[in-house]
C-alpha cells in the first residue's frame, strides 16, 4: 500500500490536516504503508493506493483500512465511541476556521512564511506564484460569508474565543491521563494531535492561538509525547524555506539583511562561474596555458 501525502516540514509529516491524521492512523494500526510525497497543490490529499485502486479522503481511507482489519477504535465501547465523535466534531467546527485564518487570512503569516513556503514547495514555475494567491482569495471569501461585516481583528477575537472554549474542553477531558480513552491512542488522540500540532508547531510569526494552547501544560506534553511515540523519525527541520533564507525564518527586517548575505554569496559565485565558462568557450582563457603553468609550477 502506498500513501500519497502533501509535503511536510517543520517537524510535521505533512502540512495537510488529513494527511497527518491518516499517517498517524496507519502507523498506530501498524498498517504496512509506504509514504510518498507529491507536490501538486491541486490534488486531493491524502490518497491511498492499494493494488491499482485509489482511495481518497480521510474517512474513505479509514474505512478501507478497517476492511483490511487495521482498526484503531476496536477497544472503545459505544459511549466512548460517541464521545470521540462529539469531540472530533467540536474540533472541526472550531479549529478548521482557525487553520484557514492562520495560513491564508492573516496578512503577516501569509507574506512572511506561507506564500514563500508554497512558492518553494510547488516545483512548477508560475503555478507556485498563482496557487497561493488564488487559495488566499478563497479563504477571504470563506471569512466574508462566515463573518460578514467583520474586520480582521474582530474575526481573530471571535476565533480565539472559540478556540479557548474548545481547548478548555479538551484539557478538562484529558486531565492528568496520557490518552483520551483507555491505555492507548485512539482516533480522538489522532485528531487532537493533528489539529494542535498544525497550530503550534509551524513557526508562524503571528500566532496568538499557539500561545493559548501552550498555556495548557497537559496538552503541550500530549503533543510532544504523541510526536515521540508515533513520528520518532520526523525531526524538526525547515526543508523548503531554509534553502534560500537560512536556518531561521526571518521575523523582521534586520534578519532580512543577514539572510540575504548568503543569497548574495550564492548569486556572486554563480555569476563568476558563468563568466568563467563563457570566457572558456570564447577562448579568452586558455586552459592549456593554465595547465602548463601548473606543470611548470610542479617542476
Amino acid at each position, binding site marked *: 500500500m502506498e500513501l500519497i501525502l502533501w509535503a511536510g516540514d517543520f517537524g510535521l509529516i505533512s502540512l495537510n490536516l488529513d494527511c497527518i491524521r491518516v499517517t498517524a492512523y496507519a502507523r498506530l494500526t501498524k498498517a504496512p504503508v509506504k509514504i510518498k510525497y507529491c507536490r501538486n497543490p491541486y490534488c486531493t490529499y491524502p490518497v491511498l493506493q492499494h493494488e491499482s485502486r485509489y482511495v481518497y*479522503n480521510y474517512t474513505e481511507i479509514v474505512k478501507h483500512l478497517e476492511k483490511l482489519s487495521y482498526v484503531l477504535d476496536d477497544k472503545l465501547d*459505544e*459511549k466512548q465511541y*460517541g464521545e470521540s*465523535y*462529539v*469531540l472530533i*466534531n*467540536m474540533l*472541526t*467546527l*472550531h479549529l*478548521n*476556521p482557525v487553520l*484557514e485564518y492562520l495560513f491564508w487570512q492573516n496578512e503577516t503569516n501569509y507574506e512572511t512564511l506561507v506564500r514563500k513556503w508554497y512558492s518553494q514547495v510547488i516545483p512548477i514555475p508560475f503555478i507556485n506564484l498563482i496557487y497561493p494567491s488564488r487559495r488566499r482569495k478563497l479563504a477571504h*471569501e*470563506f471569512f466574508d*460569508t*462566515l*463573518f*460578514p*461585516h*467583520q*474586520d480582521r*481583528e*474582530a474575526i481573530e*477575537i*471571535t476565533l480565539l*474565543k472559540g478556540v479557548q*472554549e*474548545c481547548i*478548555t*474542553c479538551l484539557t*478538562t*477531558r484529558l486531565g492528568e491521563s496520557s490518552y483520551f480513552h483507555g491505555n492507548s491512542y485512539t482516533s480522538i488522540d489522532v485528531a487532537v494531535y493533528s489539529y494542535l500540532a498544525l497550530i503550534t508547531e509551524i513557526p508562524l510569526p503571528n500566532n496568538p492561538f499557539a500561545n493559548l494552547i501552550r498555556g495548557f501544560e497537559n496538552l503541550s506534553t500530549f503533543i510532544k509525547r504523541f510526536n515521540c511515540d508515533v513520528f520518532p523519525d520526523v525531526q524538526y527541520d525547515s526543508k523548503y524555506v531554509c534553502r534560500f533564507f537560512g536556518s531561521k525564518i526571518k521575523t523582521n527586517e534586520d534578519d532580512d539583511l543577514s539572510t540575504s548575505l548568503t543569497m548574495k554569496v550564492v548569486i556572486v559565485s554563480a555569476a563568476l562561474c558563468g563568466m568563467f565558462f563563457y570566457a572558456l568557450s570564447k577562448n579568452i582563457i586558455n586552459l592549456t596555458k593554465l595547465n602548463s603553468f601548473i606543470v611548470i609550477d610542479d617542476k
Partner: protein
Amino acid sequence: MFPSTPLLDKIQYELGAQEPWPKDVKLYQPYEVEQILLPDNANCLAVQAFLRMCNLNFEIVSKANAEFMSPSGKVPFIRCGAFVISELEPIVQFVNTKGISLTSELENDQKCDIRAYMSLVHNVLENAELYLCWCDKETYNEVTKPRNGSVYPWPLNHLQNWTKRSHVIKRLKMMGWYSKTMDQVYHEVENCCQALADRLDGKEFFFGKKYTELDALLYGHIYSILESRNAKLIAILQKNKNLLTHSQLIHRHIMQKHFDDKLLQRLKSDHRKIKTRNIKTKAKEVEKRSHIETNKNIRRNQTIENTLTETEIDSLSDVDSGDLSDY
C-alpha cells in the same frame, strides 16, 4: 445599529449587566409561515425556547429583512435596550451577564459537555439542514427557492436566491460538506442523533431534571425538522424516540405553557372589556376566536405527536405530571 466589535460588545455587556431585563425586548426573525427556512427556523425556535426557559419576557417581531438587520447576518437577533445581539451563544452569554443562567449549578466537565454537544449540533445538524435546503436540487426548487424569494419582487427574488446559495455553498465547501452526497449527509445526521440519544440516555433533559441551552438548541432543530416534513430526516428521528420525547417535553412545558398563559390572559382581558361594555355579540366573537386559536394550537402540536405512538404519549404524560412539578 452600533458597529459590532467583540471588545466593545464585551465592555457594553459588562456595563449593561447592572440593568435588569427590560420589558420591551424584541426578537426579530423572518416570517414563519411563508419565508423562514429550516436552519433559520431551528435557530429561532432555539432562542425562543432558551428565553422562555429563563422566564424572560420578549416579543416576536417578524421582518422580511431580519437577516439583513442582524449584526452578524444570521437570524434570530434580539434588541434589548441599547444592545443588538444575534445567535444563540452570544444571547446566552448576554443573559448570563444579567445574572440569569441555566448552567450555574453544573460541574465544569458538564459545562464542557454542553459546549461539545452544542458544537456537534451546529456542525452536523445545521450543516445538514443547509445542505438539504440549498444543495439538494429537489428541495431547492420546491421549497427553498419559492420560500426564500417570496418576500422579494421579480427579478430580485432570483438574484437573492442565487447570492444566498453561493454563500452557503462556499461555507459548506470550507467545512468539507459540499463534497458529500445526500446519503452521506443523512448518514452523518443519523450518527449525530445516535450520539445525542446516547447522551440523553433515558433522562428527561441532558443534565437530569434541569434544562439548559443545549436542550433549547436541540428542541429547535428537532421541532423544525418535524415541521419541515422531510420524510427521510423524520425517519432518522423516529429511530431515536427519546429525542422526540425530549422535544415534546420542552414543547409542552415551555413553549406550550407560555402560549396557553398568554392566550388565557388575552381572553380574560377581552372578557373583562366585554363585561364592562356588556355587548353580547363581542363575547361570541371572542369565544369563536379562542376556539380557532386552540384549534391552531392543537394542529401545531399534531406535527410532533403524530410521530409518537399513543402508548409513548401515555408514558410521557406520567413523566410530565410527576417529575416536572419542580418547575
